[in-house]
């Protein structure tokens, strides 16, 4: 086993355990923080795959922006901080069977697929991957221009909708 594999296993364990704790812990603030750790684990996986760009973007977007907003929302809801009562409903057995089947099926496919056996190649780059290529691909009509623009329009629509929802109260009052 190489050092990289050991590092990967540690990171994978951190990610999975903290992902489980997100749904198992009873304090909602702790759940949000375990989510942060889990997302950090994903960022570390990107880093072991030699993709500094994706690792940094993962931290910036998911930990820096989205999780901060979640924690901000949680801080406003003090009285439902600690949930009491059962943590699972009646359907947990069926859900367990379903997820086990899904896991077994995915593992079987990955084990039999010969491309999953390929050894990772070292990326021949000086200081990480080439970001200019990514940038050019995003604005190239032959590349990903249309998906990029569609995603931008979707985000813009969401922004406008958010502003409309918050401004609606004032309009009905007058």
């Amino acid at each position, binding site marked *: 086993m190489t050092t990289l594999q050991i590092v990967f296993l540690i990171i994978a364990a951190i990610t999975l355990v903290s992902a489980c704790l997100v749904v198992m812990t009873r304090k909602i603030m702790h759940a949000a923080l375990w989510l942060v750790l889990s997302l950090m684990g994903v960022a570390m996986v990107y880093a072991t795959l030699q993709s500094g760009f994706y690792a940094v*973007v993962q931290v*910036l977007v998911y930990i820096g922006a989205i999780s*901060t907003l979640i924690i901000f929302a949680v801080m406003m809801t003090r009285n439902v901080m600690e949930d009491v009562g059962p943590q699972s409903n009646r359907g947990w057995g069926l859900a367990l069977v379903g997820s086990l089947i899904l896991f077994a099926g995915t593992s079987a496919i990955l084990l039999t697929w010969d491309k999953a056996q390929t050894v990772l190649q070292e990326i021949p780059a000086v200081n990480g991957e080439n970001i200019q290529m990514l940038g050019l691909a995003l604005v190239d009509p032959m590349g990903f221009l249309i998906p990029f623009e569609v995603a931008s329009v979707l985000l813009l629509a969401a922004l406008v909708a958010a502003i409309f929802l918050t401004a609606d109260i004032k309009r009905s009052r007058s």
Partner: protein
Amino acid sequence: MDAGMIWEWIIKSIFLILFMTGGFAYVTLLERRVLARMQVRIGPNRVGKFGLLQPIADAVKLIFKEELIPAGADKLMFIVAPVITVIPALIITGVIPWGTSINLFGREIALSIANVNVGVLYIMAVTSISVYGITLAGWSSNNKYAMFGGLRSTAQMISYELALGLSLVGPILLAGSMNVMDIVQAQKTLPFALLQPAGFIVYFMATLAEINRAPFDMPEAEQELTAGYHTEYSSMKFALFFMAEYIKMIAVAMIGSTMFLGGFQGPFVDQLPWLGPVYLFGKVIVWLFVDIWIRATLPRIRYDKLMALGWKVMYPIALLNVFITGILVVLTTKR
């Protein structure tokens, strides 16, 4: 990768951490002396020559204070929060180059720890996680003043991060790279502060808000929140918050000098690479002095005005600056 390379990295990282913590100690002294002069006082001058040993006396005093943990606090979070606050402040300057490279003991040593091609993004990512420590400190203390301090700081830091991030886009566009070293090299003739005055001013103001300095020090407004998010902290845990604030001050001064004032560039730096760190150090000192000067001059602004300024003035200016810079870069580049 040989063993010497790894030792070089370790030594450079330890040096950076020691430099930042040592810098923290003396920035507190600088602030107290400069503030005192501006308010026609003398300031601490009894411990050592010119009060130079004052930080050590303060540290000894803080170590002997009692550690308190409030009864209703979330103990683990309460202890972890100061640590989470300090770590981003310490690691953020890892991508800042101090110079090109120097020859030491027969080895060519680059004067930067990490020369990564996403350096500016790294700075943004670390900035964005630095809000956690303050938020958690405010929440875990189980105190309404601390809670409000934490809430305010979260809202303030998220709001000003947008303007901060956009103000850094200008230098990226002008240099055509996200590598901090490339950005410094592109400022060989002209610092970007002259080409990007709007970006520079937005960066300066946004960082004041980001590190909770006056006139944007809402999260720790003494008059209305007793002390804000660190109300319940004492002894070394309080010292860690204090440390994080001053280290962040040095860090944003370093990043700002690098992105807008030419970093280690200066006269004769090509012939004498040793001058690089000296120039950077000088720029950082001037920056810190201006920070302190502003604290001595301006009153704290009201919280809603602060948010309005962030969202309605600085954010649009930064956005417009990005558009104009982009258009000008495309128009002036020779094809």
